[in-house]
């Protein structure tokens, strides 16, 4: 999965070189090191002086999706990014973030620390697509802070995983805010550790975490998901795993912590294999076994 028109990206980086920055009206986009110097308040979020990465400040409503594209292109390239995205009060924004390797055997490293701030009443639909080579190491670590009445719909999709993926997300939801996280991952020859932590801090804040993980071709997938209700909150955690071959493994660890008697937290977790009946059914429709397996996997991952 590669972004089709990278030249249209508002922020486009290859290895450690920024190829393009195009900010539309109402949006300011800078390299994060520039923003760190220009705006003292940025230091509140970026604890250390950044060297690479983007700063995107959405100040006014825009009618286009923001697009970022960060690629690995050179052998053994190492990216260490600090990204900051701030959406101002009451804005309704879409953002598409693409991170990928342009070749399959680069042995690259992509490390990203990201902070996303949704101000009061802001809404963000955030699509995060990853596509890596078989020998890459990828370690994104994102924090999302949702102010009162804000809403985040975050979809992470990775159907071409790296050799190793360590992916951490932290969400902090204030009063009446909502987090909806969906993670879709197809693991092939990979080792993945996912950690999703959601703190429902404000009254009536809500959270839904959905994980759909497929382990194939000797993959090892581990997912730790934790929702903590500090207030009168509702949260649900849904983790589903599909194991394709015997050499793979999936570990799902759902964790619910309730600190308020009016809170309601629930979870469902399941790991299964492809049903023989479904396979046979599709084969009686003329699909080969391989085609049928791919169709079931794609359906499971809502591809």
């Amino acid at each position, binding site marked *: 999965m590669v972004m089709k028109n990278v030249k249209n990206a508002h922020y486009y980086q290859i290895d450690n070189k920024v190829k393009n920055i195009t900010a539309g009206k109402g949006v300011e986009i800078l390299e994060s090191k520039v923003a760190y110097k220009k705006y003292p308040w940025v230091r509140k979020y970026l604890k250390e002086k950044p060297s690479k990465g983007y700063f995107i400040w959405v100040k006014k409503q825009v009618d286009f999706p923001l697009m970022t594209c960060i690629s690995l292109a050179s052998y053994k390239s190492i990216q260490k990014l600090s990204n900051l995205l701030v959406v101002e009060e009451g804005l309704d924004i879409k953002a598409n973030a693409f991170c990928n390797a342009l070749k399959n055997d680069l042995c690259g490293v992509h490390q990203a620390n990201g902070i996303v701030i949704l101000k009061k009443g802001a809404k963000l639909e955030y699509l995060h697509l990853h596509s890596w080579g078989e020998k890459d190491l990828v370690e994104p670590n994102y924090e999302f802070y949702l102010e009162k009445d804000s809403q985040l719909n975050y979809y992470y999709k990775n159907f071409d995983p790296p050799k190793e993926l360590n992916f951490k997300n932290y969400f902090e939801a204030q009063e009446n805010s909502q987090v909806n996280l969906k993670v879709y991952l197809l693991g092939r020859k990979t080792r993945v550790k996912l950690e999703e932590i959601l703190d429902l801090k404000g009254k009536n804040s809500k959270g839904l975490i959905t994980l759909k993980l497929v382990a194939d071709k000797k993959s090892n997938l581990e997912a730790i998901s934790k929702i903590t209700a500090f207030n009168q909150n509702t949260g649900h955690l849904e983790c589903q795993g599909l194991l394709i071959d015997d050499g793979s493994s999936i570990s799902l660890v759902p964790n619910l912590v309730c600190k308020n008697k009016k809170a309601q937290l629930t979870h469902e977790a399941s790991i299964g294999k492809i*049903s*023989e*009946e*479904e396979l*046979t*059914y*599709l*084969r*009686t*429709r*003329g*699909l*080969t*076994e391989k085609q049928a397996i791919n*169709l*079931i996997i*794609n*359906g*499971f*991952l*809502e*591809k």
Partner: protein
Amino acid sequence: MLLRIKNLWVKAGSKEILKGVNLNIKPKEKVVLLGPNGSGKTVLAQVIAGNKKYKINQGKISFSHKDISNLSPEKRTTLGIVLAWQAPPKISGVKFQDFLSKINKSKMINDIENFDLKISSILENELNTNISGGEKKISELLQVIALKPKLVIFDEIDSGLDIKNLKRVCQLIEKELLEKGVAALFITHNGHILNYFKPDKTLVMLDGKIICQSKDYKKILSTITKYGYEKCKKCPLLSNR
């Protein structure tokens, strides 16, 4: 002969289900297979379609003079054998409309709206998901038509459909399949399908064996109505086999 099944013995796990089944279907022939629940009808349908859950211990299945006993389900479908499942499984995340386009070999399916069937919920939903039992039958029929078969096995197509929809489904089967020379094996326990099709041959299956066969479906139906399946072995027709 289009389909020839000779002395077929089949096990599911350690249990013998089919015990020496013989069945012949000619091109364009309409055959009805009656039998109570658990008699082995669905297993026979699944074995013909190539479901590897069932093990053939003895016997042979031929289609157009080719031994297909060890062929994969998809190769049998390619040859022209298509099964309309009694209870098709849910396939999550696969939209029916997309799936139908993927398997479609028939121009008829392009004019699907002309079928005069209430199919909008089938088209919009995922395959065999959130639709009624009757809608599943219609979904199966549409897939069958899309695959342009030579032989269709309808496993209980007449159960779960209301009278109005059963009539429409049967009209569609007649127009899109039978009139075009497709042979059909109708498996049924209630015999409702016999109100719409006059079969060339009617068979009764009990305990994994076809115990009765006649060209006169009315005689068989009246016998079953009068004595029930359990008493079929005492049926006067049995001696005429």
